[in-house]
């Protein structure tokens, strides 16, 4: 991958970073001496790339867009493409040390974009290794007690209520799609939205703002799609036919809203929060979730999606969906 001219260009452009070198050489970072031994690029340059990657990762997370390997190469590394591994590792360290976060790979999105027929085939060969998505998102690595909702969760920029409503809606939609076998036709989605009283409008990002308490459903769906909670697939062959549009769970949706979270929604909505053997059987059949344990104290009054446990065990049992970890927003961990 690295042709020699790359190194030459690298040398030519390195003086751009002059001011940054000086800043990084300040007495504050005494842990930096080891970096001297890094080969290939200069120590200050590597630190600079690490900083750029950390900032890139945080910016992506802020707008809930995936951190893509291509994006890292294009926007962070530039001509230093071959430093990927080193810079990525350094950024992970910095993210953990300063922010208590790390990047985890997102599940591949390809499967949800396959046609029904392709999908059936793919399901048959479940055991085969999931292809890599080359996309990441940030998750919290803080201990459990610091990932509870009143510290991290629903309270994004505008209002806690708006964020909570938004999380509630995408969690519900992801639950419906998953329980429908991973895809939902557009008319069926619309029927569900009507039932949720959200066919036209949904709560806005700040429902307490009397000027704009609600937002057009289409805009909210677009945002959910853009942020990777949902995937909208239009089948061109039947253009004009409503059924040609189907909805799937996006990669971020898979990480943030896992099967346990979906089960929690279903229990909440259909079980009225009470134990229900029939429902539990169905949930186990369709989601392979654990049988419900006696409710824990905090779980009941929290957003349903935060109910979560035993993920490691599930992974060990060969769950084919990778569950890389928690979301910074919702305070969970895998």
């Amino acid at each position, binding site marked *: 991958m690295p042709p020699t001219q790359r190194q030459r260009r690298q040398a030519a452009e390195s003086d751009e970073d002059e001011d940054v070198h000086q800043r990084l050489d300040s007495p504050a970072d005494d842990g930096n001496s080891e970096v001297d031994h*890094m080969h290939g690029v200069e120590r200050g340059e590597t630190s600079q790339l690490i900083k750029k990657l950390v900032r890139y990762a945080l910016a992506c997370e802020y707008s809930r867009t995936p951190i893509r390997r291509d994006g890292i190469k294009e926007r962070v590394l530039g001509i230093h493409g071959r430093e990927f591994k080193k810079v990525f*590792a350094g950024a992970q360290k910095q993210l953990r*040390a*300063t922010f208590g976060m790390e990047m985890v790979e997102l599940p591949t999105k390809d499967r949800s974009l396959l046609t029904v027929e392709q999908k059936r085939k793919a399901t048959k060969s479940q055991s085969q290794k999931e292809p890599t998505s080359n996309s990441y998102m940030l998750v919290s690595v803080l201990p459990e007690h*610091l990932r509870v909702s009143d510290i991290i969760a629903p309270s994004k920029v505008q209002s806690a209520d708006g964020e909570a409503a938004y999380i509630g809606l995408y969690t519900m939609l992801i639950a419906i799609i998953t329980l429908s076998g991973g895809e939902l036709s557009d008319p069926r989605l619309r029927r569900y939205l009507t039932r949720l009283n959200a066919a036209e409008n949904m709560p806005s990002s700040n429902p307490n*703002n009397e000027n704009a308490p609600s937002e057009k459903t289409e805009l909210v769906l677009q945002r959910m799609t853009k942020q990777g909670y949902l995937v909208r697939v239009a089948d061109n062959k039947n253009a004009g036919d409503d059924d040609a549009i189907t909805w799937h769970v996006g990669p971020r949706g898979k990480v943030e809203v896992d099967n346990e979270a979906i089960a929690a929604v279903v229990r909440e909505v259909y079980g009225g929060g009470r134990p229900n053997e029939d429902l539990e059987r169905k949930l186990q059949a369709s989601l392979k979730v654990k049988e419900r344990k006696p409710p824990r104290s905090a779980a009941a009054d929290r957003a349903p999606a935060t109910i979560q446990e035993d993920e490691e065990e599930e992974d060990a049992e060969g769950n084919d969906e990778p569950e890389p970890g928690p979301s910074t927003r919702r305070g969970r961990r895998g």
Partner: protein
Amino acid sequence: MEEEWEPPVPAGYNDANRAFIQAFMARGTLTFPEGQKLVAAILSATEGETVDPQSITQDTFAGFVRTAREAVEPLDYDIRSSRDQLRNGERIWAFINAHSDPATQMATTRSPEEVAYIKRLMDLLFDEYNTVRMEVMAVDEGQALKASRPSKRRESQHVNGEDEEGQPSTTASDRGLKHSEVLSLLSSLVAEGWLEKSRAGFYSLSPRALIEMWSWLVATYNDDSPSARDWQRIKFCESCKEIVTYGQRCSERDCTVRLHDICEDRYWRTRRGEKKCPKCETEWTGNHFVGERAITSRQAYQRGRGGRANGNGSGRRSDLEEAVAAQQEAAADDDDEDMAEA
């Protein structure tokens, strides 16, 4: 090798500090009461017993902010505070990028067309709808939509400081955004806390965006050349010295004295109640406005609104646009006069 490298963190830095930063970044801004709740929740979690938010002092909160600031400074982030020009001037702390212009700030995760649109939107807010006559610094939806595609007329006209930079928005490849894409972008900018939408339907920069971008705004929209006239696009409050995008102005058109509503009482008290402009000594009317009231306080606007339901009906929209269009024409004539005078 790199495995041994440890990123520098402040002394005594721990998971409580990390949780504070995570929560701060997720929220974007914090008020003191929000900070009290947050710090209480973190201390409750780390100490294992319930901590009352009311027991969190300014000092404790400031300590968390200081440590967080120290931790993120090497990464070119910062935490700064400012008072909200609306909402009783509540002080807010914002987690921001230290060196920010809208392009680098928003470019990371947006398409080049969206970034170019945001730049056009900034030009609308701080150039086109921010004239000597009308310092609106806000746009309604119709105006925001009109900027969905690059306009040659506008972009040939340069605001201070842009000429050398070769703005990407002027490239021929920028086909702009569809109206639906603009609406979607605006809604996500509101959701992410960059823009605010007012009751009257105007979009303006949020307090957080202003904290982060005021110095960029000055560098981009003000003219500091010796030949520049007194009036500048970005102006600051006579009392608190912070940027004014919503407040009052001196009724003398070319005078640059501005005052926040939230600073007014305190300021006139220091002037022993003498309500005169401190610079040109013109009587201070209190009804010459910066911000959307530059439009909404006008008779034309209020006539358009009269008797209508206070909703988002399309009827009101066109009235609003008419009123604004009339004012814009007046403002444009005005600009021409000024050019002739100069």
